[in-house]
């Protein structure tokens, strides 16, 4: 039966490895995830709406989505600069700089959280200096913004870097030969070619920000209506034994991140088709 299902191959082991893969996937990922949706069966439409559109929950959506977008935008601008510098210029310490990009990926989130707080709190290295100007970062929304910018930066740099590497130097030279200024070359020739990678990097950083927990909770202050992110609200609901409420909010957030990832996939398919039809 399996030979009609898959293309014939002389290699052994398809049936047992495929069976193991599916069973393990089902047990560790699919069944536990489905509990989230089954839990919604306990809720009436009214109670679901109440849980999902409560004023405190709405405030935390605004905060989380707004700051994730702002941080991803910052990452897009600064990440572009970093990626551009790394690809186009050779300078001492470039390799080290390139390695530094991945640190937010490999540092555990709780460690990043207390480290960022130590720097930006009003007694920290930078925080104490900012305090002199009356600027507070830790325990305000600025702190959340900073943590999300920290955690999202590698996503933007690592998607932009290969795209910048692949830019056609000949097109640039041709545009310059036709008398285009540096700004015109940048805006008309380089930027359009980088849009897909930029959008993907932005969306990845944004999606990561929506679910971020460990790096944010230490620096955020966690005040309801002011600095309470959605992930923290889910934890609070669980601690108050409001399992249904926690599950309802979780489904909304999961839906949002699935939509973003789906959009990235569709975008990349379109780009691939466009590039394919050109070549």
């Amino acid at each position, binding site marked *: 039966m399996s030979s009609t299902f898959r293309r014939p191959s002389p290699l052994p082991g398809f049936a047992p490895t495929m069976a193991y893969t599916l069973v393990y996937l089902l047990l560790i990922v*699919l069944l536990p*995830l489905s509990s989230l949706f089954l839990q919604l069966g306990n809720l009436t439409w009214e109670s679901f709406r109440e849980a999902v559109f409560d004023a405190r929950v709405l405030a935390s959506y605004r905060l989380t989505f707004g700051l994730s977008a702002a941080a991803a935008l910052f990452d897009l601008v600064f990440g572009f600069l970093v990626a551009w510098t790394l690809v186009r210029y050779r300078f001492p310490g470039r390799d080290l700089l390139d390695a530094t990009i991945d640190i937010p990926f490999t540092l555990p989130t709780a460690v990043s959280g207390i480290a960022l707080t130590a720097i930006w709190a009003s007694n920290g290295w930078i925080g104490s200096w900012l305090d002199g100007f009356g600027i507070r970062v830790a325990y305000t929304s600025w702190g959340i913004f900073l943590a999300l910018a920290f955690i999202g930066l590698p996503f933007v740099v690592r998607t932009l870097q290969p795209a910048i590497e692949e830019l056609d130097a000949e097109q640039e030279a041709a545009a310059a030969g036709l008398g285009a200024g540096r700004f015109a070359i940048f805006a008309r020739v380089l930027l359009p070619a980088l849009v897909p990678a930029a959008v993907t990097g932005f969306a990845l950083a944004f999606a990561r920000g929506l679910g971020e927990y460990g790096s944010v909770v230490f620096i955020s202050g966690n005040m309801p209506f002011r600095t309470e992110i959605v992930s923290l609200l889910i934890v609070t609901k669980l601690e108050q034994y409001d399992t249904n409420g926690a599950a309802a909010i979780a489904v909304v957030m999961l839906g949002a991140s699935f939509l973003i990832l789906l959009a990235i996939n569709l975008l990349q398919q379109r780009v691939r088709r466009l590039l394919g039809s050109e070549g």
Partner: protein
Amino acid sequence: MSGTRRQLGLRLGPALAIGLTVGGMIVLIALPVAAIFVQALRDGIGGYSRALADPAALHAIWLTCLAAGIAVPLNLVFGLVASWAIAKFVFPGRELLISLIDLPFAVSPVISGLIWVLVFGARGWFGPWLDDWDVKVIFAVPGIVLATLFVTFPFVARELIPLMLEQGAEEEIAARSLGAGGWQIFRRITLPNIRWALLYGVLLCNARAMGEFGAVSVVSGHVRGRTNTMPLHIEILYNDYDVTAAFAIASLLALLGLVTLAVKRWTSRRTASELSLAGATTS
């Protein structure tokens, strides 16, 4: 005149870009990393080793190693098995299966813990049944292991599948036609071809398993000396204003992350040079 201005602009541009990049990276990333070690050693080596020798800290380190020691081998076996099935055979639904394996990456840490509470919690699917048998999963070690399994599920598979798809199955099929058995093919041909990606996948999986905070925090119950992993112990110490001890534990995890990163750069260079070598010899 315009020529010299242009030259000046050309020299200023790179200098400005490099300066802004390096400055921004120092403020955003390098300073926080430096702060971990400075704060950990604030009370000298004595304070540092005292913080690590504390029984609750030692227990947290042990529990973290236990959870990673179970989750990483299980996900390693899964990664090898799944990448063999997916990369060496062509079947309908292959793309869908790859997306499903990546699914845990799209689920936020807190939700990754929440789903296990819904399944095994006091009021979850199996809650009453577990209660009858007096087995605790949530707020106990099994919950921590399950949450860790979920968040680190894709790491090994994700490193192997793209590489093995790129390598194809020709070498294995040739070995088969020469009479090699399946296990022999895997050990003598497939494994050497993927060893660097495998090493990196396992290290990444391990770093995440030991460092996971959100998912484990939801299922652990935070019982000091019982259900606290290293990241959870950091949180408790930090909230108790025992900053030096919190950063001492954090420094261990930070070192683990930095070593993982160094090995990643080394292995990806090896893989790249081996791929280009293979390309050079076949073409």
